[in-house]
């Protein structure tokens, strides 16, 4: 019994060391690796920060389970025809108490941060400088620029000015679609009979040719054309955007 005790202590120390080492390595990997694609909106910052925080928090949990699992398999394995039993440890108050406290603590913590803080940050600013009505249908996107009063039916692209707070008002004419621009971390379903709203601020210039995150892709299965239901997204400087709007107006007048 005494021997088992000291064995246990050695095991615990080795596991603790491995755990710390692996967690350190994991955190190092998480900080030096950029897992995120290009982020070009205010919402992208909130989303990516939430991901990173959760990644850091989950690292020690994951490594703990992996280390205990791996160590147990290597250290406590016996040959297949061995029939002797292990010591009948059915419970360990300290371990259970720690486990419950930590899982409760972590779960409750992530509810507030990044959960509630992120939601609050997304909903904080409801003053849009620009409103765009997005209408989805099988299988196309229509955009209407409300203030500029221009409309694109079956559009081949969505053009936006940079550093601008934009409100998307999204709806659908037939089935449920989903308005998604990966670079903006913006996704909202287009539901027939309902107008859903998304606020975001553009923060970076870019276009589809430069990075394919700049595209408006349907993210909710909507039938045969679902895969192809996408348009490009372009973010211009404000000056370029005004010029673009004028060009569109002229084209409309002459057309």
């Amino acid at each position, binding site marked *: 019994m005494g021997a088992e005790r000291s064995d*246990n202590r050695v095991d615990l120390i080795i596991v603790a060391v491995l755990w710390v080492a692996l967690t350190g390595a994991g955190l190092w990997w998480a900080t030096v690796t950029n*897992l995120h*694609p290009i982020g070009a909106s205010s919402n992208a910052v*909130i*989303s990516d920060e*939430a*991901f990173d925080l*959760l990644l850091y928090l*989950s690292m020690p949990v*994951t490594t703990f*389970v*992996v280390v*205990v*699992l791996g160590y*147990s*398999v290597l250290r*406590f*394995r*016996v040959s*297949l025809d*061995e029939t*002797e*039993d*292990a*010591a*009948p*440890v059915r*419970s*360990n108050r300290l*371990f*259970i108490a720690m486990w*419950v406290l930590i*899982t409760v603590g972590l779960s409750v913590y*992530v*509810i507030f941060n*990044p*959960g*509630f803080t*992120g*939601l609050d940050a*997304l909903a904080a600013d409801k003053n849009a400088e620009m409103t765009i009505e997005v209408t989805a249908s099988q299988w196309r996107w229509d955009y209407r620029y409300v203030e500029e009063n221009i409309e694109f039916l079956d559009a081949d692209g969505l053009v936006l000015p940079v550093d601008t707070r934009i409100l998307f008002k999204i709806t659908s004419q*037939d089935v*449920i679609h989903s308005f*998604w621009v*990966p670079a903006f*971390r913006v*996704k*909202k379903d287009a*539901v*027939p*009979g309902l107008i*859903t709203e998304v606020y975001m601020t553009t923060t970076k210039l870019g276009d589809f040719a430069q990075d*394919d995150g700049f595209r408006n892709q349907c*993210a*909710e*299965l909507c039938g*045969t*054309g*679902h*895969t192809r239901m996408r348009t490009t997204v372009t973010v211009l400087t404000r000056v370029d955007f005004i010029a673009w709007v004028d060009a569109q107006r002229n084209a409309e007048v002459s057309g």
Partner: protein
Amino acid sequence: MSILKGIVGGILGYLLGAALVTSIRAATGAEPWDFEVATMGAYLPTVVGWLLGVGVWEYWARPWFGREAKPYTTVGWRRYFNFDTDHKVIGIQYLVSFLFLFFLAGLFAMVMRWELMNPGRDILTPSSYNGFMSLHGTMMVFVAVAAIVGAFGNYIVPIMIGADDMAFPKLNALSYWLVPVVVAFLTASFLVGGYDTGWTGYAPLSVTTRTGALFFNLAFLTLGLSSIVGAINFLTTVHKMRAPGMTWSRLPIFVWSIYVTSWLSLIFTQFIALAMLMVVFARTLGMAFFEAAAGGDPLLYQNVFWFYSHPAVYIMILPAFGVTLEILSHFSRKPLFAYKWAVGGMIGIAAMSAFVWAHHMFTSGMPDVLLKPFLASTELISIPTGLIMLSALGTIWQGRLRLHVPMLFALGVVFNFLFGGITGVFLADAPLDIQLHDTYFVVAHFHYVILGGGIFGLFAAVYYWFPKMTGRMMNETLGKVHFWWMIIGFNFTFMPMFWIGMNGMNRRISDYVPNLGGTNRMISLAGFFLGMSFVIFLWNYIYSWWRGADAPSNPWGATTLEWMTSSPPPLENFDVIPEVVGGPYTYGDKSAKHAILEPRL
């Protein structure tokens, strides 16, 4: 023979129902023939006709009308193709049927991965891709919902609690014989051109799309019926059929998992029935539940659907947890660690599963005020889930681990589920889920949970109980090859999916932006590798059943009741009724006993 009668009965039922509906339509002046309306009207007669033909009439219903029921005279392998009330026969019927469905759906996955190997179109049209994708998802969900419960719940649970059969053997047969109906409807949907709604079948798409969707709805409805009947049976069995002395705190953890799962099935499956009924009525009778223009609510479907389908995720994973903990204890030769906490975890998961469904709808346009409550409830469900992990880790720590094949798979469940569970925390975070929702991040997450957890658990159970069910041993070496091949293939297939999901690959598309081509090709190759691992399993499974070494009654030296009877057990399982005198995991204590099997006066 009885299957033939069943088919005849089903066809007669269909013709009868269709004729009735058509004549009613003719009488009211509508266009008489409408395939979908006729099929809807013929659904019930078809199912009833099949069931009556396949054996309900001969073996069960005749006494209601003052006749003698036919005795069960079928013997040998023919029993498995017959209406049979022996829970052991039904367990094997379930196992073989769902393994078949699993491999079929797996083939569909191979076809999908072929298409996704390169950007652009390879072998499938977008429409046929959607068809394969939908059938793959639906079949796999059905397998995950019913395979462990149907096969091992039926075969093992009665033996584990010392019963001679389930509480309602005939109902048990009924719930199995509904499964061929499910398969028939899925096949029918394929024959009429498939459906393109995915397994979630979101309205309004499912209302307006092709005819195949109707058959999908009817198939899901039928599976729901089967689940509910099964759940009633399991609950009653565990409540009423336990051997003397088998108290609740002496129940093996696998029995607990089936018991808790059955509560989930009993309560929540009614919601899928409701969702499917509404879609069927919307398709065939023009009902306006989901039609915004008429004042309906397109989001209603999602609410009702997920009110079943989120608890259904736990219906899929809880039995796998049960199998895993069971195996970990026996092969660590150590009592299950924190037994009561594990049971509490299962009950906690089940109780909380009713309050998390809308986390599937964070981007759906549901009212913003609901985001926070559902975010919170979803994050909190990781606490009871963590208790399962606690029990698993505590059990193997300082155990004496014998790495037989079932043990390897059980350890695989712990490892895979770790990633499935942790990424669930990410997805529950609403601000982040906005980006990750409906991307391959979700695909990776639920494959880690359902394939990495549920199906690894299924294979653990197959390897563990195969000797008991067939009286033969499976080949250990081939089993180990299968395990390592499968877990490596699995992780190489699905780990990169987290990354492509974050980087802009959404679900259910047959084509993607070129930039994701390299990773997708790697995923496809790993997927084919994963697919091939099952060839080894199949060979091992079939050959061992045919020619494997004879199994002793207790090849693993395990302590629960099913190992105290012969392999396979006799009719009625035990020669004497066991008397349970202690807990199920008596390792490390020579004086402890789980049960006494002695002839009594």
